[in-house]
């Protein structure tokens, strides 16, 4: 779950960059940047859940 979360974080960032580089400065760019940010939120939630599920894991 943690690995998938980090993958989604990076994938979301890649979507944001792709939207900047490839899309025209109009609504599609804004929508794709928002979509990339949403993927990042999903990724962060997965990483957070993987840690919250095992709070004593560190020791």
């Amino acid at each position: 779950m943690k690995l998938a979360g980090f993958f989604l974080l990076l994938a979301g960032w890649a979507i944001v960059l792709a939207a900047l580089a490839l899309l025209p400065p109009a609504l599609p760019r804004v929508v794709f940047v928002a979509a990339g940010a949403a993927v990042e939120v999903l990724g962060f939630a997965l990483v957070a859940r993987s840690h919250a599920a095992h709070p004593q894991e560190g020791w």
Partner: protein
Amino acid sequence: MTLLAAPALSETAMSICILCILLVPLAGAGLSLIHSGLGRSHSAAHSMVAALCAISIAALVYFVCGFAWQGYPGHPAHSFLVAGKPWSWIAAEPFFFRGLEWNGSPSSLVACLQVFSVALAAVIPLGSGAGRWRLGPLCLSTALLAGWTYPLFAHWVWGGGWLAQLGVNYGLGRGFVDIGGSGTIQAVGGLTALAVAWILGPRRGKYGHDGVPMAIPGHSAVLVLFACSLAWLGWLGLNSAGAILFAKIEPGRIVLVAVNTTLAAAAALLMAAWITRSRFGKPDASICANGWVGGLVASSANCAVVTPLAAAATGAIAGALITFAVDWFENRLAADDPGGAISVHAVGGIWGLLSLGLFGRFPASDANLLPGVAPETDATWAGQSLAQVVGVATLIGFVFPLTYGLNWLLNRFYPQRAAPEGEHHGMDLHELGASAYPDFVTNIDDITQR
């Protein structure tokens, strides 16, 4: 839009800037005291030694290679073309500050400010690792932060990198703007603090078998609240110096920066006090202190380009966000963060960056915020907001995985957490061999042992 070299500063601007830069170490001193005061008494000396070690390592590593990779607008950098647009991703300056002229030139002032700034960023993760982070791995982790993570993102924002060029390349306002370092210093440090808290795991006894967190109160509220005043002075210097160097404001507008910084902190503290009083019946001293610093953190991004009313609103929202974030990270995300570093610096910093998109106004006649863009560049609300969102997405989607990965790798080869007996006896005795308060019975464990 045309690319311009960074303009030189007037004598007055240079003198004021130097004075402001010299205040910045007070911010680091304030944060160190806050982390020590919010930690347990049997780890207080360790906490302060760790802060000095982190500051030392950060300054030295930044001197060796950090500035070379951060660079300065107009100086050599590595770029690649994406759909015909240049993306500058890392600077190509010589190591060891070679090539810099120490005569008050803008690049030398930036280098000086950055030595203090990277030290400030390095102190932030100590708050989340307090009471269990060993000194050796802590120094190596700081070296990774100061030598790689910080300079890379700082180049993108302050060194003429691709985030700063979003305005030139894609018409997004003035590009990603972060005047005093809400993102570059605070959020980078705060996200590293989150990575450290998760990798180290919580302190012994923090969570019960049912997963419910226990309160482990800090040992000195007086120290914490005094440190808030020190941090205030440091932030006045940090925001003012950033506004002169990165926003190119006239020296007279420092008064607006100072007022905005103070209003943001004041509004954040009062909001935190009001919320904790509403929830728990009495204001909580540690949350109030976190609110104060969170207001300072949030003010850094937009201090020179918002009205005082907007600065107060930025601070009030920061105070509310931080108050709930402290609970959220502790109760929901199992991030044991004794100093509140994650909520204050990551959440507060990210909110500060977004608030610049919401409240920031850039008059067309104003000197340009990006030292590579001609003043005729227009900054629309929508374009600037999108640029800020892209910057925040970069922090969460790239900087956090990077800093987590580096600390995870370090932990694989050089375990970062202290042994259980070290935590039990306190990091002072375990790592330093002497207590911070040798003449006093300092915690309940000492009493029970007798």
